[in-house]
C-alpha cells in the first residue's frame, strides 16, 4: 500500500512537471542564422477579393527585394485590437501589425509601438505631414510617428448611373444639395428603386459622421474632441434630423435596420438593389469593387450633399487609412520596419492601385494605373477637397454610441436631441 502510494506520488510529480513544461514551452525554437522571418498580422490577409490578393502580391515583391527577410503573414479577425492587446501584454506576437492609422484604438496603443521617425527619414517626404500626424499620439507629430499608412481612407456617396437613368434622372448631373438629393430619391422611389442602401451595424454611423465631415469646420471638430461642443448643438442635431427625415420618407432601405453588416448591404448595392450607397475610398466597397460589379463607367461619385449654399461643397473627410506598425516587443525591429516602409512605398502603392485595394497614402504612386472613372473622380476629390474627418475627433465610446443609437433615431424611437445627448453621455 505504502509502495503504491509512493509510485502514485512519483507519477503525479512527473505529470505535474510535464504539464508545467508544456505550459511554459516556447512555440518555436529561436532561429540561429539564415534569413530573418518576420510575422505580419493583417485582417485583410486571406480574405476573398482585392485586399487578400494585395497582401500576397506585396509580400512576394518584398521578399524579392529583401531576400534575407521572409514574411510569415497571418490573418487576424477584424477588429483586431483585443488580439493586439493580448500580444502586447504578453510581449509576444507579430513583428508587424496592420492598424487603422487614424483610429482611436491605434491611438490607445501608441505607447507600445516603435517610434519610426529615425527609420523613415528617407521616405518621409513621400507622405503628407497631416497623414503622418494621424499616427502620432494625440495626433501631435512631435510626439513621434508610430506607423506608416498604406492608404487614405474616407467616405463618399457612390451611385448607380444605370438606375438613375431608369428613374429619368441625368446620370451625369447628380444631385448636389440635400434638396436635390431628396428629389432624386423620390424619383428613384417612384420608379420602384430603393434610393439609399444602408446597414445598421457598421454603416449608418459612417453616413452620419461622413456628413458631419462637411457640416463642421475644423475648429468645431476640435471643440467636439475637447468636449466643448456638444452633439446636441443645433448644427449637429440638424444633420440627425436630415437622416431621420430621409428614413421617414421611405428613401432608405428598411432592411438595413436588421442587416448588421456593411458587407451585406454593399453587396446589395453591387447587385443593383439600391441606387445610392455610402462607400469607402479604400479597402472594400470602393470605386474598384463597385466598378467591377456595376461596370467601370456606371459608377458615379458624390462627395457630400450640402445643406446650405454657404456650406463647403465637394468636401471629403479623409485621413490615413490602413497602415502598418511595429510593436516594441518585436525582436526583429529592423526587418519589421523595412516591411512597413516597403508596404507603404510607391512600388507597393502601384500594386494596390492595380489590384484595387484603395487610394495610396504615398504621394508618388502612379495614379495613371487607376482602373476606372470613379477611381479617378475619387483621386481628384482627395487631391482638392480633403478635410480631417469628424470620426478622428470622436472618442471610441462616442463612436460606438453614435452607431448603437442611430437606428432608434432614424426610426423616431428617440428624438435627434436625445440621440445627441446619448452620444455626449458616452464620452
Amino acid at each position: 500500500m505504502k509502495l503504491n502510494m509512493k509510485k502514485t506520488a512519483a507519477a503525479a510529480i512527473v505529470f505535474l512537471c510535464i504539464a508545467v513544461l508544456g505550459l511554459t514551452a516556447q512555440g518555436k525554437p529561436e532561429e540561429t542564422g539564415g534569413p530573418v522571418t518576420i510575422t505580419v498580422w493583417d485582417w485583410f490577409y486571406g480574405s476573398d477579393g482585392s485586399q487578400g490578393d494585395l497582401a500576397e502580391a506585396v509580400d512576394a515583391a518584398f521578399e524579392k527585394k529583401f531576400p534575407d527577410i521572409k514574411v510569415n503573414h497571418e490573418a487576424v479577425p477584424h477588429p483586431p485590437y483585443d488580439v493586439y492587446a493580448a500580444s502586447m501584454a504578453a510581449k509576444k506576437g507579430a513583428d508587424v501589425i496592420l492598424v487603422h492609422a487614424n483610429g482611436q484604438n491605434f491611438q490607445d496603443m501608441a505607447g507600445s509601438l516603435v517610434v519610426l521617425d529615425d527609420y523613415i527619414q528617407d521616405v518621409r517626404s513621400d507622405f503628407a505631414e497631416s497623414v503622418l500626424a494621424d499616427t502620432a499620439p494625440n495626433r501631435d507629430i512631435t510626439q513621434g510617428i508610430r506607423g506608416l499608412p498604406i492608404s487614405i481612407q474616407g467616405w463618399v456617396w457612390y451611385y448607380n448611373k444605370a438606375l438613375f437613368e431608369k428613374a429619368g434622372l441625368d446620370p451625369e448631373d447628380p444631385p448636389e444639395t440635400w434638396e436635390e438629393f431628396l428629389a432624386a430619391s423620390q424619383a428613384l422611389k417612384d420608379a420602384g428603386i430603393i434610393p439609399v442602401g444602408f446597414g445598421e451595424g457598421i454603416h449608418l454611423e459612417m453616413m452620419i459622421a461622413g456628413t458631419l465631415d462637411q457640416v463642421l469646420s475644423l475648429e468645431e471638430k476640435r471643440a467636439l474632441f475637447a468636449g466643448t461642443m456638444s452633439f446636441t448643438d443645433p448644427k449637429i442635431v440638424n444633420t440627425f434630423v436630415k437622416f431621420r427625415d430621409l428614413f421617414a420618407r421611405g428613401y432608405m432601405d428598411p432592411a438595413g435596420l436588421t442587416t448588421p453588416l456593411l458587407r451585406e448591404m454593399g453587396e446589395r448595392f453591387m447587385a443593383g438593389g439600391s441606387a445610392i450607397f455610402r462607400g469607402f475610398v479604400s479597402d472594400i466597397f470602393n470605386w474598384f469593387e463597385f466598378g467591377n460589379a456595376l461596370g467601370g463607367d456606371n459608377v458615379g461619385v458624390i462627395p457630400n450633399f450640402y445643406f446650405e449654399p454657404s456650406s463647403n461643397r465637394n468636401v471629403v473627410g479623409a485621413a490615413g487609412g490602413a497602415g502598418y506598425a511595429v510593436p516594441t516587443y518585436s525582436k526583429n525591429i529592423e526587418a519589421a520596419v523595412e516591411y512597413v516602409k516597403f508596404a507603404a512605398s510607391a512600388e507597393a502603392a502601384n500594386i494596390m492601385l492595380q489590384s484595387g485595394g484603395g487610394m495610396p497614402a504615398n504621394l508618388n504612386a502612379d495614379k495613371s494605373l487607376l482602373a476606372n472613372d470613379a477611381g479617378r473622380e475619387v483621386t481628384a476629390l482627395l487631391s482638392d477637397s480633403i478635410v480631417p474627418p469628424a470620426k478622428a475627433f470622436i472618442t471610441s465610446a462616442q463612436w460606438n454610441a453614435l452607431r448603437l443609437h442611430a437606428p432608434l433615431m432614424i426610426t423616431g424611437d428617440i428624438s435627434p436631441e436625445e440621440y445627441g445627448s446619448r452620444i455626449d453621455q458616452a464620452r
Partner: protein
Amino acid sequence: MISNKSMRRSAYFFVFPLILLMTLFMVYPTLSTIYLAFTKWNGFTDPVWNGLHNIRKLFADNSFYASLKNMLILTLYIPVWTLLPLIFAELIRQPKKGDGFFRSTILIPYVVSPVVLGMFFKQILGVEGVITELLLEYFPFLGMVGFLTNPDMVIHTIAFITLWKFFGFGVILYYGAMSKVSDSLYESATLDGCSWGQRLRHVTVPGIRYTIQFYLVLGFITFYARMFPLTFTLTRGGPGYSSFVPEFGIYYQAFNNSSMGYASTWALFVYIITLGIIMFQNRVMMKD
C-alpha cells in the same frame, strides 16, 4: 498501517495540483479583476489607479441601468423556463405513439450553437425575414412587427429564443428524473381519484424536486451569464440599449471602447449582483 498524519500529508499532496490550478485560473483572475476595477486601463498600457472614478461612472451610466433592467425582464421568464418543460415532460411520461421521434427531435435546438441560432433568427425575424413577411401578409393589421427593431420587443424576442433553445434539454432532464419516480405512486394517486394536475403537483414535483432546483439554477445562470453569443449575433445590444445585457456590457466596454478597467468594474458589479441572487435562491431552497 498508515498514520493519520501521513494520510493527511498525502491528501494535501494530491489536492495541491488542483489548488494550484484553481489559484492560477480562478483566484488570480478574480483578484486581478477586482484590482483592475479601480484602474484606468485601455489594455495596451499599464493600468493606472483611479480610485472610485469607475464606480461613480458606473452609477451614472445609462447602459448599466438598461442592462440591469433587461436582466430583470429576463428573470421574469424563469417560471416559464422551469414549468413549461415540466408540463411537457409529464405529458410524454406515459408512452404514446411517436414519443421516440419527439424525444429525439426536441433536443435539436439545444445542440445547435447559439451563434448559429442568432444568425438563423436574424434571418427569419429581420425586416425582410420570413416570419415578419408572413405576419405582414396574413395579419396586416399588426403592421411591421419589429422583433429585432422595436426597442420594447427585442429583449422578449431574445428571451423566447433562449426558452426555445433550452426547452428540449429541460424536457429530457425532467423526463429522465421522472423515470426514477415509482409507478406505484402514480397508480395510487390515480386510484385515489387524482386528476392529471394533482398527480403532477403531488407526485411528480416532490419526486423530482432536486432536478427542478438544478434546472432553476441553470435558468438563472443562463439568463444572467450565458446571453452573450445570442445577443452579439442577433442585435449587438441594440437598438440603443434595448437588448444590452450585463455580459454584453462587459464586452462592449472592454473591446469596443477599449476601457478594460471600466469593463472590470462592470464585471465586479455583475458578479456581486449575481452572487447575491444565487445566495438568496439557495437560502430559500435550503429552507424548503
